């Protein structure tokens, strides 16, 4: 029974293609139709998640801030995205007179396309990857680099010095945080022995001692790498506390200042879809993908577990947004280069030592030490920088 529910999406697609094939449709059209259906489903699911998240984020933020969120449109305000969509579509599309029209128009497109393309390699369930790539992780980061070009295009094309400043800060932030992101992802790929997401998920299967899941996040190096990936993902998606580029109180809206109406909605959508994509990648790399946490919970279908985990990670991102104040740009960059990057290298080294020390109890202790000591050293090195010392004056001679 559970096997049926689990394989339901694949079976339905197969039945439909078989139906088409029985009408004499040639093979290549069937392949194209299959691709279109899969792409449509994935994009549909993620856009639906985007709509739901945009309202749930506002409601969760509101509950933390002692107020209700949107609760007028629809039951518990759940139709708010419809109202927002209507507003965005009917808003006037302002393009500054001296703006670079072609680049200004293309920037939202260039932002949205990588965000959607990246959803192709995430395994949503057992055997449910839209595109089975051998180097899927590399594809993820290569395509994600396209987002930076879009941010620059948006900032520069607006012909507005605040937009350019915001875009430069945004790009500096994204480039700085790309290194810890990639290295912490490589940690998981290294231990799993493959760059393919399905192989990484499969490497986290099985249960130690019969009931403990073997997810990477439950190891010292995996936990560190997961945290580094999470923080770097927050920064890549320009989400609080790293949302200086688009903070409303800082640079109006940074590189998005001159965008209104549907183009702004596209940027907004791309940001959320990117957030979900990177949550999906985090779940795949460290949280076991579609694996169930306990042996008897495998009755729940694999894609249910995947989406539950992704929603949980997205919820923590919203939770973090509600809790933390925004980081200043120099703090942000210092944090990336002086803390996250060394920690990601420490996790890398720790994972390698864990593997070559035989994965036994000694290996666990060793990997814990290799991760813990840099953490303590780096953590304490930050506080001394801001210690107040006796003021000295230097006069020009």
């Amino acid at each position: 029974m559970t096997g049926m529910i689990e394989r339901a999406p694949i079976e339905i697609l197969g039945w439909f293609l078989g139906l088409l094939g029985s009408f004499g449709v040639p093979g290549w059209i069937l392949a194209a139709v299959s691709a279109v259906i899969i792409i449509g489903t994935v994009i549909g699911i993620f856009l639906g998640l985007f709509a739901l998240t945009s309202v749930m984020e506002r409601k969760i933020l509101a509950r933390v801030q002692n107020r209700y969120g949107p609760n007028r449109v629809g039951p518990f305000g759940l139709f708010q995205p419809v109202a927002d969509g209507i507003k965005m579509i009917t808003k006037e599309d302002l393009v500054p007179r001296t703006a670079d029209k072609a680049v200004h128009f293309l920037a939202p497109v260039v932002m949205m396309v990588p965000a959607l393309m990246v959803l192709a390699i995430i395994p949503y369930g057992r055997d449910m990857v839209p595109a089975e790539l051998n180097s899927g992780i590399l594809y993820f980061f290569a395509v994600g680099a396209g987002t930076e070009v879009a941010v620059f295009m948006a900032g520069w094309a607006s012909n507005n010095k605040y937009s350019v400043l915001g875009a430069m800060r945004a790009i500096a932030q994204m480039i700085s945080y790309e290194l810890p992101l990639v290295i912490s992802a490589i940690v998981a790929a290294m231990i799993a022995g493959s760059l393919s997401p399905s192989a990484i998920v499969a490497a986290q299967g099985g249960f130690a001692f019969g009931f403990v899941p073997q997810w990477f996040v439950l190891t010292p190096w995996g936990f560190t790498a997961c945290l580094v990936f999470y923080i770097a993902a927050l920064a890549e998606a320009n989400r609080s506390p790293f949302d200086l580029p688009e903070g409303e109180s800082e640079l109006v809206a940074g590189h998005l200042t001159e965008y209104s109406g549907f183009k702004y909605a596209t940027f907004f959508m791309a940001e959320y879809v990117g957030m979900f994509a990177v949550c999906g990648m985090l779940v795949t790399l460290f949280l076991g993908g579609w694996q169930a946490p306990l042996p008897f919970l495998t009755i729940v279908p694999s894609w249910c577990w995947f989406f539950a985990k992704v929603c949980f990670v997205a919820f923590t991102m919203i939770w973090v947004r509600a809790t933390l104040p925004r980081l200043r740009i120099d703090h942000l960059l210092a944090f990336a280069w002086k803390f996250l990057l060394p920690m990601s290298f420490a996790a890398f080294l720790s994972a390698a030592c864990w593997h070559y020390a035989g994965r036994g109890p000694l290996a666990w202790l060793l990997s814990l030490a290799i991760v813990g000591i840099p953490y303590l050293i780096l953590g304490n090195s930050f506080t001394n920088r801001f210690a107040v010392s006796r003021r000295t004056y230097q006069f020009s001679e």
Partner: protein
Amino acid sequence: MKIIGEWFVLLPAAVLLLAAGASVVMRNLIHAALCLTLSFIALGIVFIALGAEFVGFVQLLVYVGAVAMLIVFAILLTRPDRLTKSGTPFSGLGPAGGAATGFAALVVLLAFIFSSPLAKKPLPAPASAPVAAIGGALMGNDVVALIVIGVLLTAALVGAAVLAMEDKP
């Protein structure tokens, strides 16, 4: 099917040539930089279509993600006011002279490529795990290349840090 297979390489190659040509000809510097980025993307797709997945993705990651941004930052930080006007050309060759020089460079490069021993060897069979094979080669036979690149990158990073450091009193 073979026609489709070839078009996967020929179409991005055509885009690559057009974008590269456009980036040379365009007056607006930022437009030229963006066309160059498009040519990088097209080159990455050509690599992927030729079967070199790893190189293709790395091309996208490094060139589009980092080098294109570097070019753009360099333009923005050095000449933000004269973006639309092309500067005076360095030499008196003019477009015809430039095209002739480019063609001559192309002929020389092709001569070297086709006369190298790599072109004479038959194509090796594609490895079953290409990434693993590349990694093994980099750590085994070609480790000198890896170390040299590492030293180069470290020198660049140290240089950048020195340049950016404030002068201490």
